[in-house]
């Protein structure tokens, strides 16, 4: 590669800094609102840290609301969804990458098709279905729905990653006497760990941030997950914006942290496969 001249460096950095400002400013706004005392939504000041900042809202979350319980519930649901998602996506993606069975192409296409259902088509029947299966007020119903929403994308991207792993590796293992499953489990799966990490991340995001289905399924405040708990600060006319913003930050922090640690896996690990090939 040609050497980058100092002038080019200056231009690249200023472009990137502009992009960074644009990308983080709205998030900084949320922080600002969360540390502003009371409910003062309006100010013409652009300062990120208001003069009279305090952690009042964060303290209130835990003292006046069962916020700790909600966090625990969310962790419970999310971890289960992540485990289910990773298990199912890693196996299905593998089969779709390595086997040429008649339903393969149709399966890959229908994975994409499931992403096309408008929300208005699914909401009511999903509720009726969960209700007739007696899954209202259980986490099982939520877990099944969350796992299956994230799955199509995860399978697709696992398949894409397996496609980049040469077939010869398994063949070598088979010659050494490993069974088909052992070859997958011991050789291919560890190699696919960047993609597994991304599948986990996607499953995490779909479970950690969802509230529409959760609001239909859970009736007990003690059973709430974080996002519906957060929703309860939002009222038709009297939203408690300070609390809402503080709660929003608490919902966001684990997600941000995960992205922070996993960026290096995301790049290169996120490879969407093609339908054929």
């Amino acid at each position, binding site marked *: 590669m040609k050497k980058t001249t100092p002038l080019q460096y200056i231009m690249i950095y200023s472009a990137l800094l502009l992009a960074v400002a644009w990308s983080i400013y709205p998030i900084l706004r949320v922080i600002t609102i969360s540390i502003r005392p009371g409910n003062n939504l309006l100010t013409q000041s*652009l300062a990120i840290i208001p003069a009279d900042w305090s952690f009042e809202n964060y303290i209130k979350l835990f003292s006046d609301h069962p916020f700790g319980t909600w966090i625990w519930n969310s962790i419970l649901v999310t971890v289960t969804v992540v485990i289910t998602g990773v298990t199912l996506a890693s196996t299905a993606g593998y089969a779709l990458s390595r086997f040429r069975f008649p339903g393969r192409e149709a399966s890959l296409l229908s994975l*994409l098709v499931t992403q096309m259902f408008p929300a208005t088509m699914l909401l009511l029947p999903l509720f009726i279905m969960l209700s007739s299966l007696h899954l209202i007020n259980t986490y099982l119903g939520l877990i099944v729905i969350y796992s299956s929403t994230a799955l199509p994308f995860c399978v697709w991207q696992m398949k894409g990653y397996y496609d980049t792993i040469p077939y010869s590796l398994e063949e070598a293992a088979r010659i050494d006497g490993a069974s088909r499953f052992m070859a997958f489990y011991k050789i291919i799966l560890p190699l696919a760990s960047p993609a597994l990490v991304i599948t986990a991340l996607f499953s995490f995001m779909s479970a950690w941030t969802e509230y529409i289905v959760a609001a239909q399924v859970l009736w007990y405040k003690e059973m709430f997950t974080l996002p519906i708990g957060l929703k309860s600060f939002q009222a038709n006319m009297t939203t408690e914006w300070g609390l809402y913003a503080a709660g929003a930050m608490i919902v966001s922090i684990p*997600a941000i942290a995960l992205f922070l640690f996993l960026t290096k896996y995301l790049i*290169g690990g996120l490879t969407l496969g093609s339908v054929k090939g």
Partner: protein
Amino acid sequence: MIRGIILYKISPFLRSRILLTLLLFLFLMLGSALSAEKTTLHLWHPMPAPSRAVLTELVAEYEKLNPDISVHLLYKENEEVRMAYMSATGFTEGGPDLLYGPSDFTGALVEMGIIKPLENLFTEAELADFDPKGLTWYQGHLYQIGDELGNHLALVYNKRLFAEVGLDRPPETLQELIEFGKKLTLDKNGDGIIDQYGLVWNFTEPFFFMPFYASYGGWVMDADQNPTLNNEAAVKAFKFVTDMRDVHGIIPIECDYDIADSKFNTGTAAMLINGAWSWAKYMESPDVDFGLAVLPINAETGLYPAPMVATKGYYLNPYLEGDRQDKVVALMKFLTGPEAQFKYASRLATIPTRLEVRNRPEIANDPIIRTSMEQVSHGKAMPISPQMRAIWDAMRPAYQNVLGGSMTPEAGAAYQQELAEQKVAELFEGQDVDPDAVNITAIIVYLAGLLLVIWALYKLFIAFLLPLIRGIPGVQVKESRFGVLMVAPAALFIFGVVVYPFFYNLIISFSNMGLTTVNDWQIIGLAQYGKVLTDSQFYHFFLKTIIWTVVNVVLHVVFGVMLALLLNRPLPGKGLIRVLLILPWAVPSYITALTWRGMFNIDYGAVNIILRNLFGMEPISWLIDPTNAFIATIITNVWLGIPFMMIIALGGLQSIPQELYEAASIDGATAWQQFKKITLPLLKPVMVPAITLGIVWTFNNINVVWLVSNGGQPGDQTHILVSFVYRAAFNLYRYGYAAAFSFMIFLMLAIFSVKFMQKNKVTETAY
């Protein structure tokens, strides 16, 4: 490779850990599903935080008195509690035992048949003490027992700010309101920006416009529930409100509920029109010296503005029986009893529905309750028939168009009448189908459905079961079994969840299911599809959806690839920059979309302030003008979508061998030539699947549009297809129409994506 081996080495330990945690979770999940021995009664309500606190205390008291009962409260927002109750009780015969809400729920709930008449569950003596306005009757039955007369708007004012300009009383006429308003609208530091407004309120909502309409002699419907919106009163009232803003300048150009509330609460607005639910908050505010007055009389007509008054109270689930019903009714009696009402009134200055409580000295002598009562006496009862919802949906766009300047008051009045008549008709559509006639269409639809199912099962058999039994041609049976078994769990999971909703939606789309036919709907064939395809709105929003999708995806890809190109080189601090650029993806979009909405505010939004400080630009009315509002939603979604494309592009760039560029350099290719001949062609196979997904996700992205435009504002114009169907169809309970509409969206998207993939050869090797 090295990382993979390390992971592999520690994995046995990790595996046992994961297994253990999984077992623990399953155990916990079962535990939480077990119910206690007590009878648990469910009550859903939309009470804001202050009344919620009183309700919680009352319930605790009741549980103490009745140790065998436990009452579970669930709060949801007004609209959400109604929708949730309708799906739970209307579609599955479940739902809570009690529903609390304003009386305007009544009509729709009765039409759906999901609340129980109460006249036989209460004795005459028990009802004797109630103000007749506190008991909601509809079509000859008693459906709701109120504990409060509320939701009426009145004038709240800040005595301190009044005193500062030498005023010692609230205005007595609307004309004086304007005069006072001018005195109280101040630019304190002389920088040309108004620091204190005379009057603020949520004036873009029709509910908050009603009092003025009534003060010119207008009302929403006649005795037969027909809309009456096109008249002199509507024109004059429209003019009155727009004049306050444009001629007299006493109200801000842009003001929704939160802005009005916040301005008044922080002492930067002198008067506020707001409802009974909100006053308690201002009494406690350190910046407000609280004063309450009735909305002043209109001197031009001699009429008082008449806010709508709703009874708030309890509805009973119709599927209750026997002992449980007795328990629920007992709870209902307690919650509407004198002590409960006294508690609400003394703490929150609400108006009790029981006359005895109203006459107790603590209540009768409370100055706020007295003013509130006086305001109620000027008010009119909120209509409880379902037509009211259609009228709101018609008034909102017309009124907002007038406010935005795209319609004259006269045109707005005519438009809202026309729209209201159309929407009322839509509300009751599908009733003319004879349920007893032999339904040939139904037979055809079900037969076609059956054939579809058989075909699908056959395909599944060929695809999955046959290889399982006989093996894939050319592969050992054992091997093919392994392959199929690896896919099966995920496939079962996905299709198990999707199949039922898909067929349900398909069947409903051929039916006349609507407000009055939720439980006895009929298959009527393709009529709903006909309605969708002949509606000009469908094509209008289809076009908008295309623009929305194309602009978004193009900008996502262009900016994403640009950033990736900048980052794809050795650069100090690269890791940090990369992480910061990904952040919009990491924060849940419903949080950031709301933040963006705040940032687009005309006076207080960061966007306008930054534009003014940097470029000296005049403030842009992002959320009032329909075109600007649409641009605002696009800006928000572009912000959200860039990181995904950037990451994909970075991955793609890293897989391009460096030698190619070196070889090209030696051959003397310019940077641009290298980009065109090497980067783009090699990036394309990586980007195309991501773009396909991006298109599919963007096309149906209801969340961002809905949150940034606050449900389609202004005037229900900021919509894409999926948000429009949610607004126009579900809001008026047109389930059949909504299903057909949704299915059309799905079909268009499916056909488009398949074509797109074929054209771009996604179906060929990516690597």
